[in-house]
């Protein structure tokens, strides 16, 4: 049986990843009708929907862990910005297509390692979700990686924009694999050993090399997202995401 310290830590872990998925899904939804080609509108919308599916499962499970009869809508629409525990990377605005693809690639390279390790979780709900999420993320990663390579090793302009995106986003990548405060969950087998950072580098470095992009050096890494300390970008995103539910609380149902 899970002791109370582990239970609240597990709840926080589940919310971290539900928020990661939902915030990124919202950003990708904003890309629709803005992509260079209609095929990319559909691709990004599909990725967004996969992430929403993951968020829904995670929030529903969070409701179970929390034990206060909260459903998925509560976690999505009725928490405020400082209660959201997503990493800073996913709340960044979309920028140009290169920026969106680099952000996605950095995210997917982390998510694939995360879901892969979660398939062995001793928590059966998370392990079952991980099997499906890992397959979804494999495809997302294939998509974002192929774009980073094509844009990096592309025209002069695409290379320049992609390098700028890498330079701008690099400081937000260190946070991804750095949840040092989850050692209890590791001990209990809920989450895997913390080699996600090495796996992230092993995925990202060869791709950047293939894309003829430079890896930034001597960059201080930003932290705080996983703990609820966010950039100025999250509040407007949540205001829009939560606006309908909050404006029509009495009768809005879906």
């Amino acid at each position, binding site marked *: 049986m899970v002791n109370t310290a582990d239970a609240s830590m597990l709840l926080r872990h589940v919310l971290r990843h539900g928020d990661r998925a939902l915030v990124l899904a919202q950003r990708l939804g904003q890309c629709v009708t803005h992509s260079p*080609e209609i*095929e990319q509108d*559909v*691709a990004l919308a*599909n990725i967004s929907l996969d992430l929403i599916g993951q968020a829904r499962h995670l929030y529903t499970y969070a409701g179970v862990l929390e034990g206060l009869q909260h459903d998925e809508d509560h976690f999505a629409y009725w928490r405020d910005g400082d209660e959201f525990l997503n990493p800073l990377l996913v709340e960044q605005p979309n920028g140009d297509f290169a920026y969106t693809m680099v952000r996605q690639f950095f995210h997917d390279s982390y998510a694939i390692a995360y879901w892969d390790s979660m398939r062995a979780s001793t928590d059966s709900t998370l392990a079952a979700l991980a099997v499906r999420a890992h397959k979804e993320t494999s*495809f997302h990663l*294939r*998509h974002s990686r*192929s774009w980073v390579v*094509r844009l990096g090793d592309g025209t002069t302009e695409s290379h320049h924009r992609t390098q700028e995106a890498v330079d701008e986003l690099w400081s937000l990548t260190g946070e991804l694999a750095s949840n040092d405060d989850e050692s209890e969950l590791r001990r209990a087998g809920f989450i895997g050993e913390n080699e996600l950072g090495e796996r992230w580098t092993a995925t990202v470095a060869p791709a950047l090399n293939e894309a003829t992009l430079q890896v930034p050096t001597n960059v201080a890494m930003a932290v705080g997202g996983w703990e609820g300390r966010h950039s100025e970008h999250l509040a407007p995103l949540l205001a829009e995401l939560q606006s309908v539910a909050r404006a029509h609380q009495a009768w809005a149902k879906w």
Partner: protein
Amino acid sequence: MSSKWPMWEVFVRARRGVDHVHFGSVHASDSETALQSARDLFTRRQEGVSIWVVRSSDVVASDPAKEAELFDPAVGKDYRFPTHYELPAEVDYM
């Protein structure tokens, strides 16, 4: 607005199917992204388990204006069908 990317014809085989069936087309810069786009656009509802993409310019089609000379000669030649023939009783199991 027309795409600068070439067009690709997409063929999908259903889970219980034997042939790849033509489903439509996508615009993509190369074969790998054509496959990814085809998967996103044409297999959202479990339509299939295998995708072929072929550059549209590689598809060679018969000329509709030559339909008569290509296909009319086969009409009325029943001897080309196995059912045209009556088998003797001794080998009727064939």
